[in-house]
């Protein structure tokens, strides 16, 4: 700009020195004039030639028209939005916080404010404001610096989209050239729409839509004149006038905008006063994703990241509309169920093993965490996901990322394999300690010197009978069965795996328990139903329901296992929730030292997996177990879930018979435990020698030498 001014001054100077006598002087003057004219002409030609060549060298005459086209079809950056199953917004993704606003949605008062402060002649000039330029030059000459901006909105747009912000004379020439060119191709409205949506406005917001959200928590359509004036004032220097940091500066700037509006007759004096006196109420920005289903939204981001590998158009700032399976009612219920148990969990926290504090180096109790994953077994939809007790304190998603020992929650796999291999629930087992290759698992209550049916061993979660069964059916078969039922985490080929020593995720368990709930059909878990762009064009859609399902288990076996898990509630480790057994089933799980405490339960239309433990795998004392810590949370959840998902009963498939069985000895007996069998593999015994022993005072079997 400075160079340009000097050039103009030189051109004007000769006119300022005309003087001389009449004849000679005339000749001389003529000669001089001719010479001068010649010189001037030559000089001018030379200057013009040089100037042309210089300007030409700048590329002013070869502007890339494609860039205009790019602006015409500008691909606005826009946040991606995550919706729940009811199309309610639950999250958003962005690298830069954008909220696109079309020109038609811009409030007129805001446009007036913006134009007033940034470019009063915007709607009149052709890209540059010559008067403003002259004012700027004069101001420059007077102060030896530019105190007055001469750039139009169009020029600013050029600086922020086509060329960079470097301040040089050459760049200014190019900027002007582009501004003139843009004005030829784009409407004033389009130029303004581009301008207001692209510009950084502080506090992480890009564009007026984002700024309205971040400063006032509103949509731009809802802002007041005063708020609009404040946002309009941010364009000049968003950092300097950031109201979140410098509210006084911001207010001063807002007053300047209001004054500009008044001067430009957009508002009256009275109105200006009123607007100026309006108290601005800033809203602290809260990360939207932490408002509802925080861990779920994080999970969706991870899913999108993976999907992007195959579908590159799915980038975060491309305005994706992501429709998910989340059921907000169940999500809220899941969170409340965990918080409902807070007092107990806090109490237990005092009885965990000690860990070393990273900051202080001192030993402290590990913090008890809890998480819950809720899925629909019929289609694999993830309905609720609570990754921990407090997202603000820990964003670690324990439902998807924590690898934990499932303990006895793994046992259904062992018993499933046993039933498939021909065992039946009434099969009797002598309960004694067991030693397999120096592996000596203990029963929870040292419950030995007794006998049990396989079913009772299952619902009471006895370890040694389970290991005994595992030795008979084989660990490789159990591992394969686990895989087929949906466990994707690597499992160790060792007997400990039968008791859940191999770590798994909650997703693994949700798939597995969902398979039982869904009559042996494994439904792949899913969280996203479809993804569109901002205009609603479909970009991605999940596979049809049928192609996401796989029959992995005979429905009769699935039913037998479901009944076994109902017995967990009626008579076993889940008996505290016995009244839920009419419509629900499940299994407790407790790992060594109670580091992990589980309850994995299901109804025909809902799977809910609850985990309680510490991130540090610290032991939990004081009789901690899945029954004591996880079951109450599950109970609270499932009981209230009936409000949203009507309870159903498990339907018995063909080929199943029911019998009353002695729970310890396995023979048919009136008033025994209800057990279910394959019609082809049912118990025949009607008596047991063990019962004979039980009924003799001396524990004698044969009565012959009773005296």
């Amino acid at each position, binding site marked *: 700009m400075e160079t340009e001014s000097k050039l103009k001054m030189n051109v004007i100077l000769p006119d300022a020195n005309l003087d001389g006598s009449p004849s000679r002087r005339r000749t001389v003057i003529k000669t001089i004039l001719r010479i001068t004219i010649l010189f001037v002409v030559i000089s001018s030609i030379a200057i013009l030639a040089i100037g042309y060549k210089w300007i030409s060298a700048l590329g002013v005459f070869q502007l890339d028209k494609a860039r205009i086209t790019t602006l015409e079809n500008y691909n606005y950056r826009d946040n991606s939005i995550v919706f729940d199953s009811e199309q309610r917004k639950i999250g958003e993704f962005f690298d830069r916080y954008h909220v696109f606003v079309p020109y038609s949605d811009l409030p007129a008062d805001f446009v007036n404010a913006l134009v007033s402060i940034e470019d009063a002649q915007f709607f009149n000039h052709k890209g540059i404001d010559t008067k403003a330029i002259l004012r700027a030059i004069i101001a420059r000459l007077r102060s030896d610096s530019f105190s007055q901006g001469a750039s139009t909105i169009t020029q600013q747009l050029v600086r922020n989209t086509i060329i960079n912000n470097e301040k040089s004379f050459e760049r200014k020439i190019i900027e002007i050239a582009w501004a003139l060119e843009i004005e030829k191709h784009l409407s004033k409205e389009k130029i303004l729409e581009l301008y207001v949506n692209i510009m950084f406005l502080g506090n992480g917001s890009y564009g007026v839509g984002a700024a309205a959200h971040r400063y006032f928590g509103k949509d731009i359509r809802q802002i007041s004149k005063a708020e609009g004036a404040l946002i309009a004032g941010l364009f000049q220097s968003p950092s300097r006038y950031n109201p979140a940091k410098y509210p006084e500066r911001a207010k001063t700037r807002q007053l300047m905008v209001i004054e500009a509006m008044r001067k430009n007759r957009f508002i009256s004096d009275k109105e200006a006063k009123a607007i100026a006196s309006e108290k601005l109420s800033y809203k602290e920005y809260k990360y939207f994703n932490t408002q509802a289903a925080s861990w779920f939204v994080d999970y969706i981001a991870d899913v999108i990241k993976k999907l992007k590998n195959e579908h590159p158009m799915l980038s975060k700032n491309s305005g994706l509309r992501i429709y998910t399976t989340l059921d907000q009612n169940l999500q809220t219920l899941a969170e409340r169920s965990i918080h409902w148990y807070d007092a107990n969990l806090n109490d237990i926290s005092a009885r965990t093993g000690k860990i070393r504090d990273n900051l202080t180096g001192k030993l402290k109790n590990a913090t008890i965490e809890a998480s819950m994953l809720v899925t629909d077994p019929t289609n694999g939809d993830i309905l609720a996901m609570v990754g921990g007790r407090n997202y603000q304190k820990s964003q670690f998603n324990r439902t998807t990322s924590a690898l934990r020992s499932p303990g006895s929650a793994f046992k259904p796999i062992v018993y499933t394999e046993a039933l498939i291999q021909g065992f039946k629930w009434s*099969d*009797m*087992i*002598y309960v*004694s*300690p*067991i*030693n397999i290759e*120096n592996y*000596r698992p203990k029963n929870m209550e*040292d419950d*030995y*010197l007794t*006998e049990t049916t396989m079913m009772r061993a299952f619902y009471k979660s006895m370890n040694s009978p389970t290991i005994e069964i595992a030795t*008979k059916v084989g660990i490789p078969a159990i591992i394969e069965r686990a895989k087929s039922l949906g466990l994707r985490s690597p499992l160790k080929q060792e007997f400990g795996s039968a008791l859940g020593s191999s770590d798994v995720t909650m997703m693994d368990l949700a798939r597995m328990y969902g398979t039982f709930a869904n009559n042996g059909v494994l439904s792949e878990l899913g969280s996203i139903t479809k993804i569109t762009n901002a205009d609603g064009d479909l970009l991605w859609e999940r596979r049809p329901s049928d192609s996401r399902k796989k029959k992995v288990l005979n429905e009769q076996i699935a039913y037998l296992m479901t009944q076994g898990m109902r017995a967990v509630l009626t008579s076993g480790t889940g008996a505290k929730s016995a009244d839920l057994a009419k419509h629900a089933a499940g299994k407790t799980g407790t790992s060594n030292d109670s580091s992990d405490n589980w309850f994995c339960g299901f109804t025909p239309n809902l799977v809910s997996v609850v985990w309680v433990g510490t991130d540090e795998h610290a032991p939990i004392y004081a009789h901690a177990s899945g029954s004591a810590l996880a079951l109450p949370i599950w109970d609270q959840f499932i009981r209230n879930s009936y409000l949203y998902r009507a309870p159903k009963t498990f339907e018995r498939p063909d080929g199943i018979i029911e019998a009353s069985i002695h729970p310890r000895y396995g023979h048919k007996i009136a008033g025994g435990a209800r057990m279910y069998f394959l019609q082809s593999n049912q118990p025949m*015994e*009607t*008596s*047991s*020698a*063990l*019962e*004979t*022993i039980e009924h003799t005072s*001396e*524990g*004698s*079997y*044969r*009565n*012959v*030498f009773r*005296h």
Partner: protein
Amino acid sequence: MFSGIKTLALLVTMANSSGVIQAATKTPAATVISSSSQTKSTPDSTQKQASAPSPTLAPQPPPEDTCLKLYNKFMPNLKELWSKRAQDLRPENTDGYALVEDMTPEHCKSEDTRREVIKLLSTILNNHSGKVGVILPSGSRIYVRHMVDAFEAKAREENLDPKKIFVIIDSMAKPEKTIQALAAMVFEHKVSAIIGGTEPAEASVLRTWAPRLMIPTFLMLEPTGATPTPFVYYSYPSQKILAEAAVQANLRFGHKRISVLSPTDQHSARFVASYTDAAKKSDIAIIHQVAYDSRRFDSMEAAAKKIFRLDPSERRDDLKKLYETAKKHSEETGERFNPKMIALQPDIQQDAVLIPDNFKIVRHFAKLFGFLGVRRMPLFGHYEWRSKGLITPWDNFIAGSYFVDLQGSYQSLPAPIRMVVPDSPNLLPPDKVEQADFALLAWRAIDVPLALSQKKNELRRKLERFIPKSNNTSMEAAVGASAPITYSVENNINWSPSIFSISGKTASSGVINLIAP
């Protein structure tokens, strides 16, 4: 009822008029009593006399002192029994035995009354009706039903009518009722022999009264070891013979060093005592004898640890070595050192372990031994092992174990008492086992009494001489349920136990095999 001499005289008159006295005086009974009291005949000569009585014996009554001797020997017993009879014992059915009540030693002074004394004693002690008296407790005791069924089956097998041959009276397992039953058997039914005494209370009464009444009595209870009398027989097998069979089995399998685990509840105490006695005689060493409480797992575990020397306090050096080795291994390999994984290995000094308890306890011990690191150990025991529960579900640890039982194969039971054998000839459903046991016991116990009852021409007090005896008590002496029944010199039934071994049938199932006799 019939007090006073006048009444006695009246009854004698009545007896004379009805020919009872004549018959009585002509019966060998009078002769035998006199001969036994006057001569010391050998059993053979007595038997000859009994089998060939002389019909021309002099009607002279014995001298007074003989009468008194006989009176003093038998009459007080009869008087006592009469006095303890049931009140509903019908006099008309006692054939004048009520005279017992009025008899006094004075009756030996007069020749006439002396004859009556002798005749009365002779009738009571010698005459018999050819019936077998069964004195058993009934009530809810199902085994009694099984026994009676077997008695009747055996009678039918011998072409006898059970309704006619047996007189069955309920003792209610009470001494007073047993005596009443006995009085009825003697005075009213005049049975040839008595079988009963399944309960100690009734057995005690019968054991006491059999010699006093000179009536063959077969007790259905384990022998007590009391001094034998010619009239008391034990028709029940003893745990002693089972224990001796167990020793035979030890020898058969070459097991010479034995650990004995004995339950504290004493129900196998006799078996254990008999076993240790028999083992000593056969040079089998009992290297441990440890008691355990079968209701407490910790007690069983302690007993098991004792016989395998797994108590750390006994093997501190071994434990220290293990600890050091594990630590060294951990340091060398980088594997986590876990002291919980260190466990003493069992110190096996025995060839076999005796567990004289039920199959359930055996199975738990088998698992416990496995848990303690014992890979293989033959176990052996007795009749309480014999159950499907011993081999189901199959545990390979018990393959090679064995037990002894009073029953052989169920399939070889006599046809009338044979059970349905669905799975194995050596196993029965649990609700059939008791029936099979008591049916066999009864079947064998009634064999001799039935035979005696048919010797109607023999004096009842001499019937004991027809009881088959055998001194051969080897296992082969009385093989199987259909073997001839004999009694030992101690009057115990000769019973041959059976030995069974256990082996794996398939990888997942086992079988019980009869291996001897």
